[in-house]
């Protein structure tokens, strides 16, 4: 080799030009690297990583592989470029380059952590998000490290994810190529790289491409480990498997369990299906073990408990904004709750129905006629392709097992536990479509094997008389072309037709009118106050909808038929409100400013009685002027007597109380009604249950003794002559009070001289008491009170009856 001065001058000049070009290239790299460092890294990594996948292929196969992979990468580059152009007006210091909520979360969390590391000004919220346990995983950590070192990478991270996805698919391509031959491998490669939803998340900022790479690494390493003959190769595969397992470790809840169960399922299936004897033995074992396990109460309980837990998560998905689908019995979706707050329990029948429906839904949702938006309609061809994959899967399993049992079983078995977990916990169409992408990259190869097998079988002339020796239908159309054309020209239009014909009509509200409330509806309200009843007319109404008056949920949505329903309105603030209909938490219809609630002052009455069946703690915790809570939020406690042990039941306590009760509004001109029942029926001895705002919030039974007007009484001074036996009259003292908790209770303010009248005695007393106005004159505790009227007076120690002698207004100082 010639060096330095030994070389000819022309050679040195050539080398000098190369140095100059190297320096220029270095400057270009510096500029590009400064603008987008990760793009340079990904570009160089692509050139180095993708090349080995072509090793060992024939020349034509290498060309096809290069053409497909380059097309896939260029398509992704164009898509990322389109996102960049679309987002140009949004670029500023706060930009995170996200097209969805999940992407925005990942990038904003990483950028917040970067600001904290860099010492940039941050807020408490930045710390909260950056260190939040929710959403923490290795992918977020890796993205954070990248942002910290390389600066914000909202677009080049998409390129990195595209590279990770492509490598993952190429790993499976090589596996399929060795197992099933080039035709199936290339078919699977094209489908996996250009499957629309996979394409979308391969250029997302999400963790899915990394999770797929980890999964495919684990799967291919496991197959290699089983087949390797040398221990050095086994060690290499083992290390690869461990590294892949570490990658997926915390990218998804239960990732190791799902991956381990999937691999085990695949390997066991490969072992069991190897001979007919093993297959028969396995069938017998399963057929015996399942009924025995089902008969064990402990096993059944545990299984149902697991299903219940999954069902709670599923309801949580349904109660999110978006297009939800339901797989539990309809009643479980009436009241939106979070999975953590859910108390959902299932009977064995309900659990079984849930599992069957969830598994079916995972395969078929969204059916063409379930599509609700233009975006979902655009998904229709992919959904049909998914159905085609599923239909071809059984043929693929059989044909694949004939070619390579281990790879077929592992490809089909690996995603099975993931599919089951997703099926049982997902209730949102968008989420299902996204997460189905965790399954498609694995099964697509098996389905393509099924397609090839079907094509090969149909193309044999001795099997199909309509197909000639060259695989042409009626001697004219190539079978492969026929299949593709049938998909495009027949299946897609037919599916679109079913969408147009059978799609569920969207609920619409045509009119909202106020109608009288019937007594039955007041009773059905179950103690809650009904302020109005609305008749809703429209179309597409469904029984399980919920109604809301503005922000206030209605008491009930009573379905009559798809064009008519009633809405029962509870306590709603005065004013004009929108009527909103919800399916779960999804708003499906709204009638703007269609409900007017007037702020009328409702009629009230005073109910005197006893709160019974209290614990000592509850009795002591009650306080006068405390408000009752929903469903009767307008009621309030005015006065309370002392707590005392119950005379009816040991250990229980009771307390006399005076409660200001609000009558039902919109009573249709009738007397005061409470919870649909006339107040007259609540006379002495009637019981009425109220939710008293005690610290415990427990329901307390209130036994009504007496109903009084809510208006303040007129305080009077009256002279009354008591007549009773001398011993009884001897008990009467100034300050004695009629047995009534209200301020209108008659109180002895002065006593006169006692005189005998036969075997009885008489005593004139001066009472101070409150009278209520009525059409028949003034009344004391419901009785007419005027001179000559009788007055029962029940003090704590005695009961006596008197006759009213005179009534005079009370002095101003003593007025209430």
């Amino acid at each position, binding site marked *: *080799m*010639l*060096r330095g001065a030994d070389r000819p001058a022309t050679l040195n000049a*050539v*080398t000098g030009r*190369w*140095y100059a*070009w*190297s*320096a220029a*290239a*270095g*400057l270009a*790299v*510096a*500029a590009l*690297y*400064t603008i987008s*460092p990760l793009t*340079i*890294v990904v570009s*160089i*990594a692509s050139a*180095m990583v993708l090349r080995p996948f072509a090793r060992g292929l024939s020349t034509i196969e290498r*060309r*096809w592989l290069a*053409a497909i992979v380059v097309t896939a990468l260029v398509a992704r580059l164009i898509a990322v470029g389109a996102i960049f152009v679309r987002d140009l007006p949004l670029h500023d*210091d706060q930009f995170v380059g996200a097209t969805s909520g999940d992407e925005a979360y990942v990038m904003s969390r990483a950028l917040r952590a970067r600001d904290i590391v*860099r010492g*940039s000004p941050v807020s408490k919220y930045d710390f909260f998000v950056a260190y939040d346990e929710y959403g923490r995983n290795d992918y977020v950590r890796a993205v954070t490290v990248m942002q*910290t*070192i*390389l*600066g*914000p990478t909202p677009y080049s991270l998409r390129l990195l994810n595209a590279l990770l996805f492509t490598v993952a698919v190429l790993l499976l391509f090589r596996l399929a190529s060795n197992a099933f*031959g080039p*035709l199936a491998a290339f078919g699977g490669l094209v489908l996996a790289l250009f499957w629309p939803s996979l394409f979308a998340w391969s250029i997302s900022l999400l963790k899915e491409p990394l999770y797929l790479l980890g999964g495919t690494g684990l799967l291919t390493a496991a197959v290699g480990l089983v087949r390797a003959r040398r221990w050095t190769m086994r060690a290499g595969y083992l290390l690869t498997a461990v590294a892949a397992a570490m990658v997926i470790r915390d990218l998804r809840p239960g990732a190791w369990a799902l991956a381990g169960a999937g691999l085990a399922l695949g390997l066991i299936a490969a072992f069991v299906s190897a001979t007919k004897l093993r297959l028969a033995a396995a069938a017998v074992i399963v057929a015996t073990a399942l009924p025995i396990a089902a008969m064990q109460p402990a096993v059944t309980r545990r299984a149902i408990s697991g299903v219940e837990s999954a069902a709670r998560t599923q309801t949580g998905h349904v109660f999110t904004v978006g297009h939800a689908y339901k797989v539990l019995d309809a009643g479980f979706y009436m009241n939106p709750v979070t999975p953590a707050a859910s108390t959902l329990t299932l009977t064995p029948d309900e659990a079984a129905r849930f599992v069957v429906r969830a598994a079916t839904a995972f395969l078929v949702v969204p059916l063409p006629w379930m599509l609700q938006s233009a975006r979902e309609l655009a998904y229709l061809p992919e959904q049909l392709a998914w159905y085609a994959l599923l239909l071809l899967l059984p043929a693929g399993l059989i*044909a694949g097992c*004939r*070619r390579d049992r281990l790879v077929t079983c592992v490809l089909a078995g690996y995603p099975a536990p993931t599919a089951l977990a997703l099926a049982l916990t997902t209730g949102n169409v968008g989420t299902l479509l996204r997460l189905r992408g965790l399954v498609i990259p694995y099964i697509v190869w098996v389905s393509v094997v099924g397609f*090839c*097998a079907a*094509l*090969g*079988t149909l*193309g*044999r002339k001795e099997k199909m008389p309509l197909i000639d020796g*060259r*695989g*042409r239908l009626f001697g004219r159309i*190539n*079978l*492969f*072309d026929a299949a*593709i054309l049938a998909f495009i020209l027949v299946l897609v239009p037919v599916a679109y037709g079913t969408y147009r014909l059978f799609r569920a009509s969207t609920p619409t509200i045509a009119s909202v009118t106020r109608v009288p409330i019937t007594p039955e509806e007041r009773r059905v309200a179950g103690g809650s106050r009904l302020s109005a009843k609305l008749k809703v007319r429209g179309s597409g109404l469904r029984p399980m909808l919920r109604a809301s008056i503005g922000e206030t949920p209605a008491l009930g949505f009573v379905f009559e038929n798809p064009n008519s329903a009633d809405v029962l309105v509870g306590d709603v603030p005065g004013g004009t409100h929108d009527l909103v209909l919800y399916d779960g938490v999804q708003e499906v219809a709204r009638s703007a400013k269609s409900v007017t609630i007037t702020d009328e002052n409702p009629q009230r009455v005073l109910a005197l009685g006893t709160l019974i069946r209290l614990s000592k703690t509850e009795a002591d915790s009650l306080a006068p002027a405390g408000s009752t809570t929903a469903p009767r939020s307008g009621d309030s406690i005015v006065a309370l007597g002392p707590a005392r042990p119950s005379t009816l039941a040991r250990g229980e306590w009771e307390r006399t109380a005076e409660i200001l009760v609000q009558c039902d509004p919109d009573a249709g001109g009738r007397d005061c009604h409470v919870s649909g029942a006339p107040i007259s029926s609540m006379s002495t001895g009637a019981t009425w249950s109220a939710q008293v705002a005690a610290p415990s919030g427990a329901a307390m039974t209130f036994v009504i003794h007496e109903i009084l007007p809510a208006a303040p009484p007129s305080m009077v001074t009256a002279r009354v002559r008591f007549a009773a036996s001398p011993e009884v009259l001897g008990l009467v003292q100034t300050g004695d009070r009629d047995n009534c908790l209200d301020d209108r209770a008659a109180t002895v303010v002065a006593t006169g001289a006692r005189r005998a009248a036969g075997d009885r005695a008489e005593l004139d007393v001066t009472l101070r008491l409150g009278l209520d106005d009525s059409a028949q004159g003034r009344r004391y505790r419901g009785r007419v009170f005027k001179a000559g009227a009788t007055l029962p007076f029940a003090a704590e120690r005695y009961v006596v009856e008197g006759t009213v002698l005179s009534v005079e207004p009370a002095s101003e100082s003593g007025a209430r």
Partner: protein
Amino acid sequence: MTLERRTDDVDRVAARIVEDSAIANALDTARETIAAAVDTSIAAGRLRQSAARWQQLTSHDRLRCLLTLAAVALAGHLAIAPLLPPQGRPNALLAAGVLALVMLAVAAETSRRRP
């Protein structure tokens, strides 16, 4: 006929049908057209010429060229990075370290491929 044989038959028939299909042929024609266009383009020709000349250099010269490229790229990056707005600025030293590692990998790959 054995199971193995039947499988081969099915594969062969399927492959023949796909090879005969108009769609596959159209795709193949498109691929060949694009490949031919790329192969005969001036840019590709220049690139091939450059690659051939690059291969004619001694491994020592190639390494020196790569080191020159890496050194200029690193220095250039360290010089340009502070010009970026603060929010978009990378950690220049760590980013330069990443670039150095990438360049090292490229150099190693280049020298590995040299016969």
